[in-house]
């Protein structure tokens, strides 16, 4: 046994130990203490893709600033909503992709996230003789189309909107039920005082996103605080308070893709994939043993290590596992065998041409290497293009497949070149097995 082989063997054992340590115990949370990171298609949840209408943003901010502000506000809303491990990311220049794992009430989440949340006040309209304008069909007073304005502390005329809120929260009024109570900041209080003063004993309508919530009669001049009544449910009041606190979105959003997966379907997919992987793996190993004998056994061991290390990589980084990703994992097993097959076929050719075992091992690897290298690069190219494609429309399934296949094929090259080679050198070097039939060669 040469020193080089001993070093490699120590390295392989250390690698296997490290990988095993990171994925055991298997029973908690699917492999290891932290568990594998599962995609929405496996653990259930929703993915929302929004497109922002940047033409409606404030001209003083750049597109990127407006998008960053929107992402931050959605982040706040989602955190308040209470979803575990949500992800909110900007995609391209004007899209936002939101993942909500395990979300139960998606309709509620949609209203919370996608609606702008612009709070404003509108004053009653009066005709020339000073009488209030009344809508003839409903009998309700008519309100202006513009938000109520007042003179700010700096002397400029300003519309009073949600941006001057200090804080909003859900409260429960004994008569009205759930309400939203709010406090103004000092500028808001200054504006609100002027507006309530001139609307004393008149109705003042409260609008959120151009929809009238309520129109109470102003009974006193108030400045720093107020409340919104509107026959809310508890959830609706909480969500509106949440929206007002996060601030109105800087640009309107349009939902362009919604994908929901039920957790039960995900669990079913995992179960079926594990069965499929198990059956596939057993068939593959049996074939290798039957055809390549001792070499096949070596391949089984290196594939075993390959599987353990691959799972450890997935847990460590972590790479999100999706259903197509599992398919890629299983497919990469087939490709991992390819490198071994290429090497073994070369070795057998060398043995048939009456080389010694040791020489055949070395020649087999050296001659198979260019084919292994050049052929796997084509799979890498396909993976990189797929990864790009998946990113253009938030297709986490496509990305999951591409990333998994890439990692799997890269690791399979390493396994074949390092692990299989070391095992073979050790076996051949030990001179325990010299019968060529054990290598599947008949002379």
């Amino acid at each position, binding site marked *: 046994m040469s020193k080089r082989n001993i070093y490699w063997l120590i390295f392989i054992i250390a690698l296997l130990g490290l990988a095993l340590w990171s994925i055991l115990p298997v029973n908690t949370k699917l492999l290891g203490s932290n568990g594998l990171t599962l995609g929405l298609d496996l653990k259930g949840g929703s993915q929302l*893709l929004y*497109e922002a209408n940047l033409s409606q943003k404030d001209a003083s901010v750049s597109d990127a600033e407006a998008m960053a502000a929107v992402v931050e506000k959605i982040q706040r809303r989602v955190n308040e909503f209470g979803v575990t491990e949500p992800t909110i990311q900007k995609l391209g220049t004007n899209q936002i992709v939101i993942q909500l794992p395990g979300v139960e009430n998606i*309709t509620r989440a949609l209203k919370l996230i996608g609606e702008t949340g612009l709070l404003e006040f509108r004053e009653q309209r009066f005709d020339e003789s000073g009488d209030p304008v009344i809508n003839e069909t409903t009998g309700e007073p008519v309100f202006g189309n513009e938000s109520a304005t007042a003179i700010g502390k700096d002397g400029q005329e300003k519309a009073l909107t949600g941006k001057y809120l200090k804080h909003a929260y859900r409260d429960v009024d004994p008569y009205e039920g759930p309400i939203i109570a709010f406090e103004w900041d000092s500028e808001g209080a200054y504006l609100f005082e002027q507006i309530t003063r001139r609307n004393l004993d008149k109705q003042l309508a409260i609008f959120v996103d151009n929809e009238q919530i309520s129109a109470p009669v102003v009974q006193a001049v108030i400045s720093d605080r107020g409340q919104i009544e509107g026959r809310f449910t508890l959830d609706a009041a909480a969500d509106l308070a949440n929206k007002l606190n996060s601030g109105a979105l800087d640009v309107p959003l349009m*939902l*362009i*893709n*919604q*994908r*929901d*997966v*039920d957790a*039960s*379907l995900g669990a*079913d*997919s995992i179960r079926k*994939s594990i*069965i*499929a*992987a198990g*059956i*596939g793996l057993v*068939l*593959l190993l049996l*074939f290798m043993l039957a*055809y390549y004998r001792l070499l096949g056994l070596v391949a089984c061991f290196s594939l075993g290590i390959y599987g353990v290390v691959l799972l450890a990589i997935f847990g460590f980084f972590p790479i999100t596992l999706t*259903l*197509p990703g599992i*398919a890629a994992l*299983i*497919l990469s097993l*087939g*490709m991992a*065998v*390819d490198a071994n*097959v*290429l090497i073994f*076929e070369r070795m057998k*050719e060398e043995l048939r041409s009456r080389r010694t075992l040791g020489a055949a091992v070395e020649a087999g690897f050296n*001659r198979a290497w260019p*084919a292994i290298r*050049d*052929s*796997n*690069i*084509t*799979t890498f*190219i*396909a*993976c990189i*293009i*797929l990864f*790009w*494609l*998946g990113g*253009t429309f938030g*297709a986490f*399934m*496509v990305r999951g*497949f*591409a990333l998994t296949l890439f990692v799997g094929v890269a690791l399979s090259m390493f396994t074949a070149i390092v692990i299989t080679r070391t095992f073979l050198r050790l076996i051949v070097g030990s001179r325990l097995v010299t019968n060529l039939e054990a290598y599947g060669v008949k002379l």
Partner: protein
Amino acid sequence: MIDFIGKKQWFFLGSAIVIIVMIISLAAFRLEPGIDFTGGTSMTLSFTPQVEQNQLRQELTALGYSEAIVQRSEDNFFIRIKEISPEEKEALISGLETGLDTEVGILDHDTISPVIAAETARNAGIAVAIAAVAMLIYIAWAFRRMPSPFKWGTCAIIALVHDVLIVVGVFAILGQVANVEVNAMFITAVLTVVGYSVNNTVVVFDRIRENRTRGISPDFAVTVNSSLTETLARSMNTSLTTLCVILALLLFGGATIHYFVLALLIGLLSGTYSSLFIAGPLLVIWEKGEWKQMFPWLSSLPKTA
């Protein structure tokens, strides 16, 4: 030794017939585009107690979704309708629950706006085109020490197009006879087949390159033929092992990825075949300038080079 090169006309003829059938079905049937490419809403619904497909179809029509596509998927139903809003979705589900007197579970739901769907379709096309060009350039580079490496690249690309056409053609037929739709995962499968097809071809070419450099025979046809024979065991074994895992996925992996895996399987079989019986023999014809013998009418054309 198997006579790959001597019988090449038969392999070409076989492939040509298959490819022509595929092109005709593609032209006649087109692919059935899924909502990823057209926009719309699809859902997988479970019903307790179970309902019949006809009942479900009637109820959907009554609710105003007469154009709905309804398919049974194991114990559940897959439905595809035009793009609907979250409110319309709620109304549809509660309408089904009252109309069919059953409890409806939404196992998955996908709504895609036609705006992004059009972009996805375009990007998918771009991706496949970029992949093919990238493969051509890569092979030309990998075989740069051979005379005229672009011939090698082009032969690999012809084998690739052969494989992709077969996968796409089979799905055009499946779309016609079984309403099988193509979606983003189908494109993923096609791109994987692209990688796999060239992967196989490169292994075969690598052996041709090596044998040519060693100068095993002055006749390129003999060189290629022995290279193909030598790599045959590898090609078969790798295909068989990959086939083991893909078949397991196809049979036990569940409905969600069924057609994705089927596309991979077809690509795998075609990719193995074309690397041995198409790419290698093509290279011989091109290197030896045998085009005119195979296609006599070519000689009647004016010479351009």
